[in-house]
C-alpha cells in the first residue's frame, strides 16, 4: 500500500517525460494535477487503513535490496510520518494548481514537481537509514533545478547556495549513519530506536552532533539558515510553497526520527543546550523578519523562527511537546504555504513585494481585497491566534516544554509575540492606507492622485489559498482529528529516553 505512494508520483514523472509529441503546457499541468490528486486520494486511503491506537510502525513493506551494504527497501508509517505524507500530497497538488504561465520547459517542470513529491514521500516512509538518505538526496537536485531554471533574476546564486548547504547537510547525515554502523559494528541500517545504547557517550555525541548540524541546515536553524531567504526570494511561488510547506519538514522529521529516535540518551544530555538553541533561532528569525522590506523574505524569516519551536518541543521530548511538534509541522506547512501563495498573488498583480512601496491593497474596488483578507487570516494564524492551527501547535509546544525548559520556552513565547509584530507591520504597510504600488515620489500630492489599475484576482486564482485557509481553520477548531493520528506515536517517542535508562540499568533486561 505504501509503495503506491511512491509509484504514483514517480510513474507520473516518467509519463510526463515520455509523453509523445509536444503537448501544450496546459495539458502537462492537468496531467500533473490528476496524478497528484490520485496521490492525495491514496494518502487518504492510507489514513483510513491507519490504526491511530498503535504508536509503532504500521503497514510495513520490505524486501531485501542490496543487503550486503545494509540497504533494504523497508517502508512503514506511524503517527509522525502520516500527517507529513498528507501535507506533502496536499501541498504538491496546491503548487501544481497554482503554477500558471510556465513558458519554458513545462514537461520538465512538472516532472520535477512529481519527482520531489515522490522522493519526499519516500523519505517520510523509509524505515532504513540508507533508503532515507537516498530519498533525501533525490529531492535535492529537482529542487535545485526548479530554482535555477524557473527562479528570479538572482536565481543562479540562490540555487547554488541552496545546493552547497543542502549537500553539506547530506554529507553530514550520511556520515553520521555510516559512523553509527561503523561504531556499532553492524551493517544493519534499519531504523532501530535504541541502536546507540551500545556506544560510548562521546561517540554518541559526535554522531548526534553531525546529524543535528545536517538537519539543522535543512530545517533551517540559526546560524545555518542563510540559504533559505535567498532560495525563497528567487524561487517561483509554487516552489516556495513546496520548499516551506514540505521540504523544510524533512529536517524537522529527521530531527525527531533520527536525532531523538536513534540517540535518546545523548539527546537527553544535550537537551538544555538544544532548547537554548531553539530560543536563539526563534528570536533571531523573528527579529530578522521585522527588519525585512521584501514580503517574501519576511515570510521566509518567519519560517526560521517557527521551525525553532519544533527544536524546543523535541528538546523537551514530553508527549505533549512532541504532539505539539507534529502540529507545528502541519500548521506551519499550511500557513507558510498560504502566505507564500498570497505573496505570490500580490507579486503577480503589482510587480513588487517591497513593503516600502506597497500600500492599501485591501482597497475594496481596485486593490486585492480578498487576497488581503486571506493574508490577514494567514498572519493571524501564524501569530497563533486562537481558532486557527497556529494556536494549537504553539500552545502544545509551550505547554509541553514549559516545565522542562522554562526560560527557553518563555523566550520562544516572546518570539511568538514578535510574529504578531512583523506580520502586523506587513499587513499595515501593504494592505492599509491609500493604495500605492510605486515608490513615493518627491510630491506627495501627485502620489495621492495616482490612479492604479491592477488586474483583478480571478476567483480560480484564490482557490488554492482558500483551500489552505480552510485547512488552517479546521485544524484550529477541530484539532482532535490530527491529534488522534499522532498522539500514540508521540507518546511512544517521548518514552525513549526512559527506555534507554531502563535498558542500561538492566530494568528490561
Amino acid at each position, binding site marked *: 500500500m505504501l509503495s503506491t505512494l511512491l509509484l504514483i508520483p514517480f510513474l507520473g514523472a516518467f509519463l510526463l517525460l515520455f509523453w509523445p509529441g509536444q503537448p501544450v503546457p496546459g495539458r502537462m499541468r492537468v496531467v500533473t494535477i490528476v496524478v497528484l490528486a490520485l496521490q492525495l486520494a491514496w494518502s487518504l486511503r492510507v489514513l483510513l487503513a491507519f490504526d491511530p491506537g498503535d504508536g509503532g510502525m504500521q503497514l510495513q513493506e520490505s524486501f531485501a535490496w542490496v543487503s550486503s551494504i545494509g540497504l533494504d527497501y523497508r517502508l512503514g508509517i506511524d503517527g509522525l510520518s502520516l500527517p507529513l505524507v498528507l501535507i506533502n500530497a496536499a501541498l504538491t497538488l496546491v503548487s501544481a494548481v497554482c503554477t500558471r504561465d510556465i513558458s519554458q520547459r513545462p514537461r520538465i517542470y512538472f516532472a520535477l514537481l512529481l519527482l520531489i513529491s515522490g522522493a519526499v514521500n519516500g523519505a517520510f516512509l523509509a524505515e532504513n537509514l540508507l533508503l532515507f538518505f537516498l530519498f533525501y538526496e533525490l529531492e535535492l537536485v529537482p529542487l535545485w533545478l526548479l530554482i535555477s531554471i524557473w527562479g528570479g533574476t538572482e536565481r543562479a546564486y540562490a540555487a547554488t547556495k541552496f545546493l552547497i548547504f543542502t549537500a553539506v547537510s547530506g554529507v553530514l547525515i550520511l556520515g553520521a549513519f555510516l559512523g553509527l554502523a561503523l561504531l556499532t559494528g553492524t551493517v544493519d541500517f534499519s531504523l532501530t530506536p535504541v541502536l546507540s545504547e551500545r556506544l560510548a557517550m562521546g561517540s554518541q555525541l559526535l554522531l548526534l552532533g553531525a546529524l543535528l548540524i545536517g538537519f539543522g541546515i535543512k530545517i533551517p536553524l540559526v546560524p545555518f539558515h542563510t540559504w533559505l531567504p535567498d532560495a525563497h526570494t528567487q524561487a517561483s511561488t509554487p516552489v516556495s510553497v513546496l520548499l516551506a510547506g514540505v521540504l523544510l519538514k524533512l529536517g524537522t522529521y529527521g530531527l525527531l526520527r533520527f536525532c531523538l529516535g536513534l540517540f535518546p540518551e545523548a539527546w537527553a544530555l544535550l537537551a538544555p543546550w538544544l532548547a537554548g538553541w531553539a530560543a536563539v533561532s526563534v528570536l533571531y528569525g523573528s527579529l530578522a523578519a521585522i527588519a525585512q522590506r521584501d514580503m517574501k523574505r519576511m515570510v521566509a524569516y518567519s519560517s526560521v523562527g517557527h521551525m525553532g519551536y519544533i527544536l524546543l518541543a523535541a528538546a523537551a521530548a514530553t508527549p505533549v511537546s512532541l504532539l505539539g511538534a507534529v502540529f507545528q509541522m502541519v500548521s506551519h506547512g499550511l500557513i507558510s504555504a498560504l502566505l507564500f501563495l498570497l505573496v505570490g498573488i500580490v507579486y503577480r498583480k*503589482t510587480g513588487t513585494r517591497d513593503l516600502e*512601496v506597497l500600500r*492599501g491593497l485591501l482597497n475594496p*474596488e481596485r486593490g486585492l481585497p480578498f487576497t488581503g483578507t486571506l493574508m490577514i487570516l494567514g498572519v493571524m494564524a501564524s501569530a497563533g491566534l486562537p481558532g486557527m492551527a497556529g494556536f494549537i501547535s504553539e500552545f502544545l509546544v509551550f505547554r509541553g516544554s514549559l516545565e522542562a525548559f522554562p526560560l527557553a520556552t518563555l523566550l520562544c513565547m516572546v518570539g511568538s509575540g514578535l510574529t504578531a509584530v512583523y506580520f502586523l507591520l506587513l499587513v499595515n504597510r501593504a494592505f*492599509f492606507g491609500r493604495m500605492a504600488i*510605486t515608490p513615493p515620489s518627491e510630491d506627495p500630492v501627485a502620489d*495621492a*492622485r*495616482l*490612479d492604479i489599475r491592477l488586474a483583478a484576482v480571478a476567483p480560480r486564482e484564490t482557490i488554492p489559498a482558500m483551500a489552505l485557509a480552510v485547512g488552517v481553520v479546521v485544524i484550529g477548531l477541530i484539532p482532535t482529528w490530527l491529534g488522534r493520528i499522532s498522539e500514540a506515536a508521540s507518546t511512544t517517542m517521548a518514552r525513549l529516553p526512559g527506555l534507554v535508562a531502563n535498558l542500561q540499568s538492566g530494568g528490561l533486561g
Partner: protein
Amino acid sequence: MPIISADLTHAGGRPTAAELEAKLLAGQTLLAETANHVMQVVDVLESYGEVLDAYSINLIYQAEQQFLNPLPAFRYLDGDLSPGKIWRHLIHDRLNFEYAEYCQKSMFWHGTGGLDAYLDSEAFRAGCSAIIRRKTGRDPLLALLHPLFPDFLLELIRSAATTHALGQFWRVMSDLFLDLARAEKDGQVSTVAAVVEFLRQGLVAAAANPITYAVEVAGERFWVLPPQAGLTFLADVAVPYIEAVFLRGMPFLGTVSFNAQAQQVSPDQSTFAYGALFADPLPTMGSGIPPSLLMQDMYRHLPERLHQWYRQTSRGEGDVRVKICLSFQKSMFCVTNAAIAGTFPQPLDHADPAAQAANRAYAASWAARLSHSRTDCLDACDL
C-alpha cells in the same frame, strides 16, 4: 512577462491656476472636449438627477413632517410605514439618505451667504420663539428640554431650515439634470461646452426663485424662512452649497480623514479642501465614507449606455463605483464651471477695462482654489 508597477499607474494632468483662469475668462470648458466626456457627464448626471429627486423629496419631508421630532427613527421612510417599505429599509434595499444629511450638515456647518446670515438674524429668532412656544405647549419632552437648553430647539430649527433649503435646491438641480439627459437624447446637447451652457442657463433661470419654508405646528402655520427674508436660489443656496459641498466639505469625506488624525486639518474653516472636487475616487479603508455612499446610490440608477461602457473598462463591475466617482467628479467640474460662468460680475465680452478687471479677479479667485482640486480628472482618459 514581468509586471512593471509603473505601467499600472496613471497620473492625470495638473493645470496651473493661470491656465484655469485663462480658460474661465475665455469661456472655455474646464473639462476636455470629447464625445466620451459628454456621454459620461450626461449619463452620470442623469443617475444623479434620479438620486437627487429622492433626496430632495426626503429632505423636504423631514423638514416639514419630522419637524422638531426628537427621535426621528422613521425619517427616511417618507411617511410610508408599510411592512414592505420597512423591510426594504432594514435589508438596506434603499438609497443612502445619510449622504443627503452629510451634505446638509456640511452646508449647515460651513454656512455662507444670505441663508446663513438670516439664520442668525433677530427676525428669525423672533419667528422661532413663536414656533417653540406653540410646540412646547403640546410636547412635554420639548417643554422640559427647552428651559434647560434654550438654544437647542433654535439650533434644530436652523438645521431644519437648511434641510428644507437643500431639498428645494436639489429639486431644481434634479429636474435640470434630467432635462439635460433628455436634451442630449434629443440631440440638442452634444458637446461639453453645450452641457456647461445648458447647466448655466438652468442655474440662471432659477437664480431668482424664492427660497421659503413654512411649518405647521398644532394646526397653525408658521414661517421659518418667510418670503420677506428675500432669500433666492442662486445667491443664498446654490453658491453656499457649492462652497460647502464641492469645495470645503468635511475632513472625513474620503481618504483625507487620515489628515485629521495627523492633526493636519486646518483650524481655518474657510481654507478647508475636502469637498467633492477634492475627494479621492479610490475609497480607502472600506465602505461607508460619504462619497462611496453616493456612488452606491447612483449605481442603482445608472443609465444602460454608461453602465455598458463601465463593464468594458478596467475591472468591469468590480470597480464600478470608482468609475462612477471619476465620472461624477468630471460632471461636478462642469456644474462648477456653469456656476462660475453664471456668476461673473460682468459679461465676459464687456469692453470696459474695469469690468474686465473685475472678471479677472473673480476668475483668479476661483482658479486659485480649483488648482488644488482633483483637476487630474479633466483630461480625456479611459477609466
